[in-house]
């Protein structure tokens, strides 16, 4: 009798879901580990790829390869269309086990649920810490894909590497790393400056570097300013994330050449890293900044 009860209990437990994860609506249960995953945003694509899971569908793949670049998007992933309007019929044709979305309005989620179970997160908001949120999302996706141990190991490794990068940079700069501002070029006269609630600034903090141009927190953690705002970096470094697009016109202008950071040879560029990415992009930013700043220490 006891044995039968135990068996029934196990069966019930299985039926109630082998797997429970938490999204913005509360606990979501899955009977088995989903194999075919569709992600609806580049940050989510980063999150699953970092965990070693290849999604069956992701949005705007051509642009992803230019702007996000890392982690590489494998061939064979299907393009599901625009990030703002993912193609529902295309997603349905991919027959996914789960659709992972972020910041989607409830109506969108309800429609996606007609195709497959949906996991939806609050990723970008002025009201929370975007980086902490992306760590939470990383861990939830890890437990959804049965990679919790991998994820925890990756986070540990990231913390270790961040510590290393920080030490190396500290040594290179003889103990005090100069304060640094991270920008993206816009056109010949304006730039985007990363501020509170952004991944680049979180990466600076992780490296023990002071942000030279603090900006108030916002949804995307970025502010658009005239170039002369960069003159406020008087004794620090300036890092611009590529690609520059029309922004490289700025390099030819006198105003740019006379910026204190540029005059002192404290300007560096990095390879493309997506500043609105997943949790591991914190490490990618930190590596990129480390690589960019290191030559400036000489």
């Amino acid at each position, binding site marked *: 009798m006891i044995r039968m009860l135990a068996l029934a209990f196990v069966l019930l437990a299985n039926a109630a879901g082998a797997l429970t994860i938490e999204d913005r609506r509360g606990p979501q249960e899955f009977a088995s580990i989903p194999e075919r995953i569709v992600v609806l945003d580049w940050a989510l694509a980063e999150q699953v790829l970092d965990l070693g899971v290849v999604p069956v569908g992701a949005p*705007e793949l051509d*642009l992803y390869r*230019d*702007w996000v670049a890392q982690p590489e998007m494998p061939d064979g992933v*299907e*393009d*599901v*269309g*625009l*990030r*703002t*309007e993912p*193609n*529902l*019929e*295309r997603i*349905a*044709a991919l027959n996914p086990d789960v659709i992972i979305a972020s*910041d*989607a*309005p409830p*109506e*969108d989620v309800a*429609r996606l649920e*007609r*195709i497959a179970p949906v996991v939806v997160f609050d990723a*970008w*908001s*002025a009201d929370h810490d975007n980086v902490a949120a992306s760590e939470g999302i990383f861990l939830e996706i890890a437990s959804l894909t049965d990679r919790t141990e991998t994820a925890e190991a990756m986070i540990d490794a990231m913390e270790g590497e961040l510590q290393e990068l920080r030490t190396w940079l500290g040594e290179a700069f003889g103990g005090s790393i100069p304060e640094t501002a991270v920008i993206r070029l*816009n*056109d*010949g*006269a*304006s730039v*985007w400056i990363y501020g509170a609630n952004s991944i680049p600034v979180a990466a600076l903090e992780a490296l023990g570097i002071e942000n030279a141009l603090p*900006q*108030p927190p*916002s*949804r*995307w953690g*970025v*502010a*658009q*300013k*005239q*170039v*002369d705002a960069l*003159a406020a970096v008087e004794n620090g470094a300036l890092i611009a994330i590529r690609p520059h*697009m*029309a*922004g490289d016109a*700025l390099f*030819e*202008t*006198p*105003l740019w050449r*006379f*910026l*204190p950071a540029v005059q002192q040879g404290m300007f560096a560029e990095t390879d493309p890293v997506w500043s*609105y990415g997943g949790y591991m992009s914190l490490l990618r930013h930190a590596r990129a900044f480390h690589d960019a700043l290191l030559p400036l220490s000489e």
Partner: protein
Amino acid sequence: MTWTRPIAPVALALAVALMHLWLGATVDAARLFDLLTGAAPETFDDIRVTQSVLPRIAMGLIVGAALGLAGSLFQQLTGNRLASPLTLGASSGAWLAMVIATFLAPAFAASSREWISLAGATGAFGLVVAIAGLRGLMGLKAVLAGMAVNLLLGAVAGAIVLMQSPYFGHLFVWGAGDLGQSGWGATLWAAPRLGLAAAGAFCCVRILTLLRSGAGGAEARGLALTPWLTMIAALALFLTAVSVATVGMIGFIGLLAPTVARSCGARRPASELAASAFCGAALLSAADMIAVGASVTLRDMVPTGAAAALAGAPALVLLMRRRLGAADHAQLDMPEGPAGLRLRTLTGLGLLMAAALLLAICVGQGDAGWRLAWPEGVTWSFRWPRILGAAGAGGAMALSGVVLQRVIRNPLASPYILGMSSGATFALVLTALVSGTSIYAAGAPIALLGSGIVLAILLLLVRRHANAPMIVALVGISLGALLDALVKIALAAGTADSFAILGWLGGSTYRVSGNAALTLMMLALVATAATFVARRWLTLIASGDAVAAARGLAVVRIRTACLCLAASLAAGVTAMMGPVAFVGLVAPHAATMLGARTAGAQVLSAVWLGAALMILSDWLGRTLIYPMQLPAGTIAACVGGTYFILLLVRQRTRRNGRMSGL
């Protein structure tokens, strides 16, 4: 002639420039003098003044002058005080050309921008002339045609930017128009080009003087006018093109400057040109001062163009209200076409709808390419709300257009001119900004509230003029422009939210739920039925106040009711799927040209056509660049716009043929 008054603009421009310098300069006057007389810069503040502040002020002055001059040339050329680079479509043409060139050939776009920009400006202006007709350039027609062209070109540019999103982040600031400089390069590039064009403009003063006495008088003196007029238009377009290529889209200056110039007492063509140039310089510099000041306090910088519109639009509203047009007694001048609906046409309309429905329901793209199949299960549940929503929106906008064209008594009026769409968009963007969430989270009630507030303001502003059609149109346009400028400030930030706003501006059925689609369809059907029943009012209100009153119509009250109906329909559609205004212009027009000339026939066939056009556009948007999607509103603007232009051109050539045959 009095000397002192035309001096006022010069003094004004000088004073504003000096004040701008005083506010912007980070060094004292003595140091500034040293720097200007050749002292080597030592600190960054020195460089900021010589390489950023001064070129920015200079740019403001020369571009402001160029826009003022272009506005004055357009106004003297057409005899229309509402003509300007913005209202005649030239600015948005130049802008679209630059967007396309940047997209296709970035290097070419950078090296020959003035010519690309000029080609775009000329094309758009040509379009406005084709729509309004040369005669139409003198009146409200030109402005309405310009609005329509702006809408069409803006939709195309928006769609391109949307498809290539991260690459075009920088175009947002430029789209809003900004004077920021990092050296003298751009200023020195623009100055000689604008200078030459300005010199050319002053060479045409004699022709402008002759034009004042009327084209007939000029020709009587043995002057071949056409080459001269073409030359003047080309100069105005070139001034516009170089301005847009250098600093982006800055509206209102070209419209306001000549008006201010005239109120300063500039009367003769030469003094009007000169005074407009100085007024333009002063106005743009003043707007730029506001932009610089606001940029210091706000998180994101404020583009100059947005500040110019912010200051310019209210001024425009005031000016418009003062100018109560004599054209208000005019009656609706319907586009030409057969006298009645023929059986052939009715069959065509039926087939069109059948084809649209068949394509929309059964034809789609999948992994294996195109396929024709009855959609099942989930696919059907995604498709029907979009198709029904598109049909409802098309019908409602078409009805709104019919009512509005009859109330405004102009076949070129579209629901867009009432500012409903702009009101809804602004409300959504503002909510998103304040709450720090996506604009999709705000939803339909907020959009409706925005439209409602704009309608209330509009009715309040025009009440004193008994809702005179011309005043309604002009105040609506100004209000819309003001709100669009505010939206542009939000767009200019160039973040992911900007693309969400842009997507919304395209008018997409993507987020239309089944319930919303049903509501929209019911709204369209009920409103169509009600309008059909009340068709006599529509006939009377379009035939002039005197006629309508003589037949016992409470003109003002009926007009208010009609305006409210047109506005509510537009607001309802905008709330559910974003602005889809072009249908409201094309469908009523096309219906008339097909022979639906009585109010009742026009109502029914326009609604039918509008629904078919939107169903077709939505289908194209879903399938054309699968798996990407284009907003139905944008496609409708492109498809409808092309059809519209073809109709007009055909009509014009036919009419010309008939005239030459006489």
